């Protein structure tokens, strides 16, 4: 019997403790909600800042604006084309308005110049700009990617021999590509806007290390499809997870767009004959065209850019136009992701270069980060609301009515009474 009583006593005691603990826990929920909210917000914001920081190529407009009062907008357009032999062939012109022809660049530039002259305080673009502080107008670059085998050459006993070979992605660039893609240079520099020598090449760190186990390789020579190129710089690719998923860590080299003709087989549109080979220069298409436009009125740059595209219309875009400036903003990210499901760019099967893929992956991740941050904000609000309600309830009842006897306080009280008796 005594055991049963003891057990019952113990049970009752533990039951009371459990109730008190549960009550304490319930009363502490707002605090924990706030803690969780702060953690989620800190995590989301920190990750978002980090992700955005890793894509400086999407924040070119702000950097280009520098200290001037005129805002700029960075726009990109991605076009299609025909690859005769898969990835190893550069895109060639595809009729039907889906491609951007090299000759279209002049049309686009004319339209952009008109927009810059009429729609902003910007002066005309001066290609041979060397001096002066006047505001520059629009700036552009274009590029096309394909894969090729790159051979590293070394001089052995006075003879130039192949010292290494690697499949690499070649980015054929034109215009002021360097201004749109802020590289970290490990040596040398990038291809000048006005070519000094068309047979110059810039390697990325992956390819340079693969060939030479060094980054100080300016002046070395490489060969692509029998055409010699001189290395003038090595750029460092980003090593983030996003960059890796986007393919930035691949071996890569940058050449002039004008060099495509000398390294690619020129059979587009021609016919191989046993006796007589007719080589017709291929009509290489632009895969990506980018521009920075002055924008006195917000949103005008987007319209100007779209209007400048020869084959672009709202009803039948055919080209994928991306508004790079501000694309990582909360509303823009949510606007891109929603409605959930397959996006236009996925459905229409555009072929994007690695930097755009990285930017899109960043958008996807930012969506989660912004969601986490948003969740944190909601929890924070709930936590504060609960505290507010608790405080209001406490103010509404008499003091001590809701007091819960604390075991520690009770023991302290007993101890005090005992001391007084003694």
């Amino acid at each position, binding site marked *: 019997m005594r055991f049963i009583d003891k057990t019952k006593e113990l049970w009752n005691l533990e039951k009371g403790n459990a109730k008190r603990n549960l009550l304490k826990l319930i009363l502490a929920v707002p605090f924990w909600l706030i803690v969780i909210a702060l953690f989620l917000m800190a995590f989301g914001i920190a990750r978002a800042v980090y992700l955005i*920081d890793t894509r400086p190529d999407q*924040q070119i407009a702000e*950097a*280009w*604006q*520098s200290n*001037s009062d*005129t805002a*700029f907008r960075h726009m990109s357009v991605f076009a299609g084309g025909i690859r005769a032999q898969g990835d190893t062939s550069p895109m060639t*012109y595809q*009729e*039907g*308005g889906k491609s951007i*022809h*090299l*000759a*279209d*660049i*002049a*049309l686009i530039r004319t339209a952009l110049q008109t927009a810059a002259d009429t729609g902003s305080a910007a002066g005309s673009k001066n*290609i*041979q*700009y*060397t001096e002066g*502080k006047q*505001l*520059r107008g629009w700036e552009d670059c274009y590029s096309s990617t394909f894969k090729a085998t790159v051979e590293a050459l070394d001089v052995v006993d006075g003879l130039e021999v192949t010292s290494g070979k690697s499949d690499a992605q070649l980015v054929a660039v*034109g215009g002021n590509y*360097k*201004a749109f893609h*802020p590289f*970290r*240079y*490990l*040596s*040398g*520099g*990038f291809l*000048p806007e*006005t*070519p*000094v*020598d*068309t047979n110059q090449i810039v390697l990325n760190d992956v390819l340079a290390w693969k060939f030479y186990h060094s*980054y100080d390789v300016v*002046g070395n020579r490489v060969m692509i499809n029998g055409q010699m190129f001189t290395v*003038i*710089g090595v750029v460092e690719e980003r090593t983030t997870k996003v960059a890796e998923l986007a393919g930035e860590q691949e071996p890569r080299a940058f050449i*002039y*767009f*004008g060099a495509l003709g000398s390294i690619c087989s020129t059979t587009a549109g021609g016919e191989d004959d046993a006796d007589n080979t007719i080589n017709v*220069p291929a*009509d*290489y298409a632009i895969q990506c065209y980018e521009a920075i436009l002055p924008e006195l009125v917000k949103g005008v740059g987007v319209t100007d850019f779209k209007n400048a595209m*020869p*084959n672009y219309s709202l009803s039948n875009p055919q080209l994928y136009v991306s508004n790079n400036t501000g694309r990582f903003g909360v509303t823009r990210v949510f606007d891109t992701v929603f409605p959930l499901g397959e996006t236009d760019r996925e459905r229409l099967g555009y072929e994007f270069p690695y930097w755009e893929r990285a930017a899109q992956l960043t958008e996807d991740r930012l969506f989660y980060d912004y969601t986490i941050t948003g969740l944190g904000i909601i929890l924070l609000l709930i936590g504060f609301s609960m505290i507010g309600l608790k405080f209001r309830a406490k103010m509404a009842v008499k003091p001590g009515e809701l007091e819960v006897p604390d075991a*520690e306080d009770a*023991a*302290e009280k007993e*101890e005090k009474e005992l001391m007084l008796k003694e």
Partner: protein
Amino acid sequence: MAKGSARRSRVVKAMVAFVAVLALLTFFSNTLMNLTIPKVMGAYASRGNLSYSNSARGTITVENQTEVKGLEGRTVDQVKVTNYDTVQAGDTILTLKPIEESEDLQSKRDRLKQLERDAEYDSRTDNSTDFTSYYDSINMAKATLSDAEDTLYAVQNKDAVEEENKQIINEESVKEVSLKATVTEAAKTVEDIQKQIDAIDASIAPLQAQIDVYTALGTPTPTPRPDAPETTEPAATEPETPVPEGATATPTPSPSPAPVYDEDGLDPTSPTYEMEKLMLKIRQYEDQKTALQSQLESAQTRLDEASAELAECQGKIKDAQAEIDALKQLPSEAAAQNAVTTARNAVNTAQKALSDAQTAAGITEDKARDTAEDRDEEIAKLKKQIEELEKQAKVTEIKAPVGGYIYNIAVASGDALTAKTFVTYIIPETDRVCSVSFKFSSQAAQSIRVGMDLEITSGFIQGCTVQSIKPDPDNPRANKIVKCMVAGNDAWPGEEITVNAGRGNDNYKCVVPSSAVSEDNNGHFIYVIVGSSTPLGDKYTVKRVDVSIEATDGAATAIKGEGLDKYDVMIVVRAEKPLEDGQRVRLEDYTSK
């Protein structure tokens, strides 16, 4: 005690947490610094020799391309071609939306109608201005002026005139007296002569009565003798002997053989002697009367003349007196002068009013003429436009004027067209004439000759031959424009090509890796590392320096900028993150990677 221990416990917990945080921060200090301060690598600028190429870029233009333009007031329905499509002459480029009566056409018609009405109304209106009132005003003012000038003249010559008039009065008064005497005398003479004549008439009357008696008595009427002596003057010598009453005239007897004549040459024996005697007497009286009448006439003439002279004289006196009286009524000279000035001003004012009115009328007339001319021009223009619009309204498509490639379609469905709207270019399929203009520095252009082929370093064309070299209009001393003809039918307008006109090398004071040079809206710039020592260690910041590029070979760039000629200037050649002016940085260990 228990409460005190609880407090101690809390303090201990806080201290532990603080130490933990410190340890955590210490442990992750490097990571935190890496996150906040970007790492950069610096290098000193050096003198160097840079090999460069005389490159230039240009854009291909097709010189024999055909430009297609739109139609006024039409809207594109469908564009039937796309860029680079091949078309033949007459192929449809785009279709146009039909227009029945466009608002533009209707408004032009309404406008034309209105203008023609206005012209018709204006043609009926007499636009000439009547200046009569102005001329009248001027004439009146001139008359007033003339009067005022006369008055002034009179005032100025008042004394002389008065003296003159007084002299006239004096002279004429003297003359008047004499003339009055003359008149009185002449009147008296006339009166006397008249009395004598009356007396003669009175004398003749009884003689005639006697003759009448003789005649009644049957006395023949004597005939005058032709040879009657004329030496006798019976009237003067013979006393008047009236014919006795009752005597009758006897007829003159026929010639007798020896008549004896009296002193009057009459034959006393004649029966008509008495009658003849009477008649002779009468003749004598009448002769006297005639003589007196002659005297009377001359006296009367003298009287009239004297009277006239007297009247004239009196008139002169009166006039002179009146003039003298008038002179007294004249105003002062100042008042007269003022009156002249006022009158002259009035004339000027009137003339100016006329001039202004004529000017205003001229302007109004010119305006009316200009308006009419403008209206006529607008009418002609509207008629032409309406004609063209009506003509264009019948057109439903724009066709290719020549065959070739479609290039640069600039319109889309729904676009409104004007006559100046550019639609597209048509580029010849073959025999395309393409050219490119390059801008070279004058120094680089020295090695370029007309006819030489330039090396094409970018672009997909087969050849580029120099056609002409001329100074750049924008900077004729520094630059040359080199125009080249491009070979190959694959050249497209707008295609950008780069050519090389030889290489060169030069020594430069400040050569840096090309990676050091950045670019933004304000131009090219570099970041210079500025170091400073602090108690916590060395601190580095970056300072932006705007530069200009002198030359580049791709890997290295020769730059020029403020403060770069110093030997210890360290330039950022590589940065972990995009930098900002004044940002704190940390130096990278070059050998770490």
